[in-house]
């Protein structure tokens, strides 16, 4: 029984990381109808920045998170200006998909040059000894992830619903011409959504790194699985992203334990294809009617 709870907890922790990344996807998708195919690489850059700040410069974990957020924000601006905006002007989907992919490739190579190609271990801020909650043993980092991820998503959602700027973002996502008529600067809002999305990705890197290893290739698979989460849950729904993340995180851990570690990623992808077959808008997504 304790075993089961442990498994569930680590599934939830992993799921929350996916949810964070997918949360980022949904933010930029709602305002610009694009997904950042370099999101995994942004996670990686956040993790490596955090590594430098924490392990090399010994400035502590909190500074590492802050630095990662900063780097992420900067990457968001670069992404929007260099990859997204020019691609949207060409009007084709291939353009922004490949542009963000290209940026990801550049990011990965840059990371290799700066930090080397090897993976390093990331010091866990709360220690790597498992905590004991009754009979259940759980890694403190997992608890930290669940807490921080939930906090980030709650804060962003509250901001989105309560503050006037948050409402402006929702307005832009819904109808950007009407938003412009209300005096909202739409291009700046879109850039802002990329800044937030990328900063969140970078911070997720610092969160997940202590659980695995930090290296230039750590982000790719995570980013890819997060797409599955975003699509399964519903690309434009905050709840959907969390539910999708938990679903896939749990699927993964259970498959790894009871079937085989090699196949742990597969159920998530099969779930993705099933959802695409049955309800492409995602579990919590809305259908939209296209007018001709």
């Amino acid at each position, binding site marked *: 029984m304790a075993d089961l709870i442990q498994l569930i907890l680590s599934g939830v922790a992993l799921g929350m990381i996916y949810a964070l990344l997918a949360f980022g996807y949904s933010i930029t998708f709602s305002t610009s109808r694009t997904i950042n195919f370099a999101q995994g690489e942004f996670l990686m850059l956040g993790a490596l920045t955090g590594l430098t700040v924490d392990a090399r410069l010994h400035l502590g974990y909190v500074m590492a998170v802050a630095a990662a957020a900063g780097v992420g924000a900067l990457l968001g601006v670069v992404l929007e200006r260099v990859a997204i905006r020019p691609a949207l002007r060409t009007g084709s989907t291939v353009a922004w998909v490949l542009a963000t992919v290209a940026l990801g490739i550049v990011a990965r190579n840059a990371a290799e040059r700066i930090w080397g190609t090897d993976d390093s271990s990331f010091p866990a801020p709360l220690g790597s000894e498992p905590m004991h909650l009754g009979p259940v043993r759980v890694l403190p980092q997992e608890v930290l992830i669940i807490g921080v991820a939930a906090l980030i998503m709650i804060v962003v959602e509250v901001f989105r619903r309560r503050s006037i700027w948050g409402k402006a973002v*929702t307005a832009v996502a*819904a109808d950007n*011409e*009407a938003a412009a*008529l209300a005096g909202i*600067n*739409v291009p700046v809002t879109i850039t802002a959504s990329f800044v937030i999305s990328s900063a969140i990705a970078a911070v997720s890197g610092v969160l997940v790194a202590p659980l695995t290893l930090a290296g230039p290739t750590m982000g790719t698979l995570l980013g890819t699985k997060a797409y599955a989460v975003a699509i399964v849950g519903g690309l434009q729904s905050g709840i959907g992203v969390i539910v999708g993340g938990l679903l896939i995180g749990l699927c993964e851990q259970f498959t790894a334990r009871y079937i085989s570690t090699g196949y742990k990623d597969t159920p998530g992808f099969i779930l993705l294809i099933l959802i695409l077959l049955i309800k492409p808008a995602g579990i919590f997504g809305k259908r939209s009617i296209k007018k001709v």
Partner: protein
Amino acid sequence: MLEIAGLVVNYGLVRALHGVSLRVGDGQAVCVIGSNGAGKTTLLRTISGFLAPVAGSITLHGSSIVGLRPHQIARLRVAHVPEGRHVFPDQSVHDNLLLGAFSRRRSRAEIDDDCESVFELFPRLKDRRGQLAGTLSGGEQQMLAIGRALMLKPAMMMLDEPSMGLAPLLIEEVFRRLLELKRRGITMLLVEQLAYRALEVADYAFVIEHGRIELQGPAAELQRDPRVRAAYLGNAAPPPSS
């Protein structure tokens, strides 16, 4: 207040406006009427900055606004109630109004006061202040769109076909409100398909056909002019002599 001279606008490959000129004076209510496809919406969209004119000028209080982005023109307090209303469907009535005031330097109290005066004008919206705008009826959405534009504290308000898609009784109600706004002295540029409705509200009218101003004059005169009807329904044979 608003002066347009020789405006030429292309919509894709088609020339939509062939040198349109018109004026809206301070405190005036001007309407532009004409049948579908005549160029009315193109005119408003060009003023608002969504389309760039090929030639001609648009000046607001004497300075040109051609080339400005839509949000910049909105910040000059030119409110545009778009065709089809375009309320923010997943946000509440109250939020829609707050967003209307987004670009103003404001205190919370001031905004709340403005909200209250909008609710005074449209009591039905007050009852539904927490409701999601997408669930409102067409008429309520139209009133919300006008209310949202009013939150800008506009110097001039442009309305694009407020009657579209509304049942006759609701059209009645909306136009009554427009008369009230005119009474309060708001400068208005009203674009409408329902010519006679528009002529009741406006002081001055322009009739646009195939991208050109074919007719203009004080609204009261045009109400009696048979050429207005011809612009919509073609030249009818004279009725059988009675």
